[in-house]
């Protein structure tokens, strides 16, 4: 399948009270198209995700209208946090079949300034990640559902709070080198452990931030004008919708998504130069490192020690700063991992550039570790 990511971009990120969801998406779309050397008039395919801050009955229609385009291929995609990576694959299928030549993928919203943080927490808790009838009445936060994963992982493999904290520290260190990132002030393991306990064993700094922002990329059948970045492989993995359904919660669907993506690309985890892992919580990264095959099962906690996932380490992870520090405006959060993978492969990352990066992995995780989409991207 011949598909390339020809352009990437984002809106202003962080706190943007003067911009609504459509403003943010418009800004991101224009940035990605300008990066590709293309114009809105050339877009004949459009993908977006649902948003939570406004009542958009038909999100992709709202976005097409807002951008002033009438694409011949369009869809609203929702595989939760895996949407960012899955969008690349869906766009690639559209260009590979000839349904479209230039597919714009764009999503984002003013998740931070639209509502108060308390309202955001309540709104997220009510979306339905916990079963509305059998689970929500007990009062789990979304972080609680991930905390259950973390607690079990600690029990089975001896993973420690310090190892979880190191994930947040490493990724914040990357955000500090990204001028666009929402949170850039460096933190230490002690800072993470001293931050407010939300739901044991997860502290405030083990959890993703909430941001305003939008991201975009352009998928085309031809390499484009910049250094080419090609989709080499992808895979999906699904295990469960509600966490109680998964009888082995320390292991995720990334096992399957990674296996399929690596097989398709014909490469192994050892070949990957930089991994943009989905980092909604620190435990997510540790489980993904194991399940994608970067280390044996249960070794993720020990793997992150010694700077191994920091820039300059053996496997730099989530080099833009991720959901933990750079941007987390809802479902679009996983798109920034794709944007960063492309920039790393082009050598455009400045102070946070991974030297000679030729092969990147971008991973999305949705629900409560239930749905995964892994991409492998490389210089064609």
């Amino acid at each position, binding site marked *: 399948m011949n598909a390339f990511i020809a352009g990437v971009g984002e809106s202003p990120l962080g706190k943007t009270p003067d911009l609504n969801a459509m403003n943010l998406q418009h800004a991101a779309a224009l940035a990605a198209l300008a990066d590709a050397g293309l114009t809105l008039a050339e877009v004949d395919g459009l993908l977006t995700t649902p948003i939570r801050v406004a009542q958009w009955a038909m999100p992709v229609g709202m976005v097409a209208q807002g951008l002033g385009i009438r694409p011949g291929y369009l869809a609203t995609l929702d595989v939760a946090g895996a949407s960012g990576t899955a969008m690349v694959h869906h766009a690639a299928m559209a260009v590979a079949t000839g349904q479209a030549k230039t597919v714009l993928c764009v999503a984002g919203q003013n998740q931070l300034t639209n509502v108060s943080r308390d309202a955001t*927490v*309540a709104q997220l*808790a*009510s979306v339905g990640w*916990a*079963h509305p*009838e*059998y*689970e929500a*009445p*007990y*009062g*789990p*936060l979304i972080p*609680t559902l991930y*905390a*259950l*994963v973390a*607690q*079990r992982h600690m*029990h089975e493999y001896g993973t420690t709070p310090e190892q979880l904290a190191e994930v947040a520290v490493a990724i914040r260190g990357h955000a500090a080198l990204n001028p666009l990132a929402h949170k850039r002030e460096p933190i230490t393991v002690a800072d993470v452990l001293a931050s*407010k*306990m*939300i*739901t*044991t*064993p*997860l502290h405030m700094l083990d959890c993703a931030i909430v941001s305003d922002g939008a991201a975009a990329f352009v998928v085309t059948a031809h390499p484009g004008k910049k250094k080419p970045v090609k989709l080499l492989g992808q895979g999906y993995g699904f295990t469960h919708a*509600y*966490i*109680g*359904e*998964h*009888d082995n*919660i320390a292991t995720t669907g990334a096992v399957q998504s990674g296996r399929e993506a690596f097989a398709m690309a014909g490469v192994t985890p050892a070949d990957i130069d930089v991994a943009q892992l989905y980092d909604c919580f620190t435990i997510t990264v540790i489980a993904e490192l194991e399940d994608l095959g970067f280390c044996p099962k249960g070794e993720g906690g020990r793997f992150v020690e010694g700077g191994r996932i920091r820039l300059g380490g053996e496997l730099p992870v989530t080099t833009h700063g991720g959901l933990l520090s750079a941007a987390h405006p809802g479902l679009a959060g996983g798109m920034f991992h794709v944007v960063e993978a492309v920039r790393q492969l082009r050598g455009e990352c400045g102070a946070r550039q991974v030297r000679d990066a030729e092969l990147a992995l971008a991973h999305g995780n949705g629900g409560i570790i239930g749905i995964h989409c892994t991409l492998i991207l490389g210089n064609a």
Partner: protein
Amino acid sequence: MLPPRPTNRFMLPRCEGCGKFHFYPRPACPHCGGARLAWMEPSGRGEVYSHSTVHRAPSAAFKDDVPYVIAIVKTDEGPHLLSRVVGVSPEKVSIGMRLRVRLGDRGPEFEPEA
């Protein structure tokens, strides 16, 4: 289709074909595909599979409960279910702790086995 979950006792869906319990309720048995399902009373015993003590309430409705223990309970019959562990201080809850059900306002909850 299964009727709504009974509230006066702790019940789980059970397949009349293969005799196994499951959770969550669904149109067919996840073990054998059988469609003859009924709410049946399991032993009400199980153990903590994982747990988390919530310190920040998800909404005002839970503010007075903080801190409270959310757990995945592995029932002796097999199904896992999310619930609360009550009747014990949160720091004493651990994986593997034996539990028995009791009915609370929120639904079935679990407390340490005597």
